């Protein structure tokens, strides 16, 4: 069902608008089948970078290579066959049903006037099953809860048959359980995934490698255990934190410390108790 996972390579990608540099020579590589996380503070260029990858923004410097081909040379449709997107705001969509919404994902494989055939209907049904949303098929998208809607949008991305899946904070507005479900699902899809995440612990647990952006530049990259250090968090986010490999999960776990404040008694050890 799914196309071969794609390889992604961004070389010196920059984006400037109105004289402001949002992205400054970012390099990134995602190998086929890898899940790569993009983290960083607000305004560090994560979403801009993602948009340059999926093509709603055209980089003003550098280039994006998909399976070795320059993405700028791909047409809108051709790119949509290779890259599927789960964006943050999907809109209410006027009461389209879940099935209709997911079927939209077949569009890059169709001529404008072409109708969906039985093969497309099967793909839609299978994708809905894969995200555990087959019971929602005839519901209206705008009636669903945030978690249900997010799964439907993943299903839509699936029927696009992409090699690369780009997700912009897919866990936003979801409760803990749904956050874990969505990320677990994405990992099992077999696509190459590029995920923007706010939550560093989720990123550490679900990504093979992380890229940390700060002020439009890649400031660190590598496996979560190497990247997420107390020094880096202090430098990039300006927060005090403790990072330790959690015994239960084996992945790095970040605990934030309150900023030192003069009104409270300085007692770092007292605060450290709360880590456990």
């Amino acid at each position, binding site marked *: 069902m799914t196309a071969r996972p794609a390889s992604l390579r961004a070389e010196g990608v920059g984006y400037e608008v109105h004289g402001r540099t949002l992205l400054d020579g970012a390099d990134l590589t995602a190998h086929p089948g890898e899940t790569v996380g993009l983290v960083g503070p607000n305004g560090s260029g994560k979403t801009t970078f993602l948009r340059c990858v*999926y*093509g*709603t923004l055209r980089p003003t410097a550098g280039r994006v290579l998909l399976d070795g081909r320059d993405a700028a040379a791909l047409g*809108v*449709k051709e*790119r*949509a*066959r290779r*890259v*599927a*997107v789960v*964006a943050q*705001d*999907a*809109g*209410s*969509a*006027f*009461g*389209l*049903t879940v099935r*209709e*919404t997911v079927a*939209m*994902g077949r*569009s*890059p494989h*169709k001529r*404008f*006037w*072409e*109708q969906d055939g039985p093969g497309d209907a099967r793909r839609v*049904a299978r994708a809905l099953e894969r995200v*555990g*949303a*087959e*019971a*929602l*098929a*005839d*519901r209206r998208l705008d*009636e669903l*809860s945030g*978690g*249900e809607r997010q799964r439907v949008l993943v299903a839509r991305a699936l029927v*696009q048959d992409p090699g690369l899946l780009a997700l912009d904070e897919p866990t936003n507005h979801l409760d803990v359980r749904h956050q874990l*479900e969505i990320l677990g699902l994405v990992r099992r899809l077999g696509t190459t995934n590029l995920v923007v995440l706010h939550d560093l612990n989720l990123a550490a647990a679900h990504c093979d490698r992380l890229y940390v952006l700060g002020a439009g530049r890649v400031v660190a990259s590598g496996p979560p255990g190497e990247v997420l250090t107390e020094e880096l968090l202090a430098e990039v986010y300006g927060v005090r934190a403790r990072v330790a490999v959690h015994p239960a999960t084996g992945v790095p776990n970040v605990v934030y410390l309150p900023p030192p404040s003069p009104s409270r008694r300085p007692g770092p050890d007292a605060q450290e108790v709360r880590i456990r």
Partner: protein
Amino acid sequence: MRGARGPAGTRAPAGTRAPAGLRGPAGTCAPAGPRAPAAPRRTAGARTPAVLAVLVAALVVTAVAGLALGPVRVPPRDVLGVVLGGERAGPLAAVVWDLRMPRVLLGAVVGAGLAVAGTVLQALVRNPLADPFLLGASSGASAGAVVVVVLGVGAGAAAAVALPSAAFAGSMCALVVVWAAARRGGTMTAGRLVLAGVAVQYVLSAFTGLVLVLSADAEHARTIMFWTLGSLGGARWDELALPAVVLVVGTLLLTALARPLDLLLAGEEGAHTLGLDTHRFRAAVFVLASLVTGVLVAFSGAIGFVGLMVPHAARAVVGAGHRRLLPVAALGGAVFLLLADLVARTAAAPREVPVGIVTALAGGPFFLWLLRRSSRTEGIAG
């Protein structure tokens, strides 16, 4: 379904696993018998042929009523005799065939066209408050047409081309101005859209009135009413071909573009990532919607609210997918405008009310209701 979830929890009860089974309006699963073989689905898609059949029947009935009623009442049997039996002689035939038939046909064409234009404009701006009239397209068409009328560009064949062309140009300009004014930084809020539309509509209506008053037209009050409120009273057999052709071609083209129209509902970025060249496609739909609106307004004046209400009703019945929605909206628009014209002709007989007043009386309150509802659910005033 909301609370209890998880991979298994989302599934319908055993037996309805494949296509989800019968579903009530609240989206609840009807209990299906064990291994119920392919439970019939009562989805919007399956309902469409029946809806179309009902609308065609309604269209026939309203058309016959439109031919039968008026200052001279013609029994329906005689109406059918004239229309189907081909009796073209005699006073009854003159009333039915020469006077009322063109009017009924124009009403159906204009109603259908405005509903189609409204449907695609709503998709284009992703907003249920759009309609050719509210977005200024109809007023723009009137303004363009009036300029041609007052300048007296040619006569006969030249005027037959100039008038609709000018209306098309006017409608297009108005839409572009509203679009540009409502858009800021890549986003367009409903509030800005409606305000820009109303402003443009006022300016263009005022312009239309001014041009007519300044011209030597002795009857300018009547003509102003025609162009700003609309009327089907001027329908003539020899002027029906162009609006009919534009309606049919426009509707067929737009229905063929149902897939990309659906994609627009996913939002600008969504449509783009699903493989749609949004800029080019949107420009194409703008031109088509202006063409349909402009040509129709050139023959009927600016009739409001048809393009607002009908798409809504149609969406409520067959859902938002454009392949089903557009034909249903077209037929529904035809029926609606024929009914409105019937009221316009008979309610205050022997006087005739401009049909735009009837549609506005129905459409204004509807618009307010919609505005309240949308602002509750979507924060539309933003």
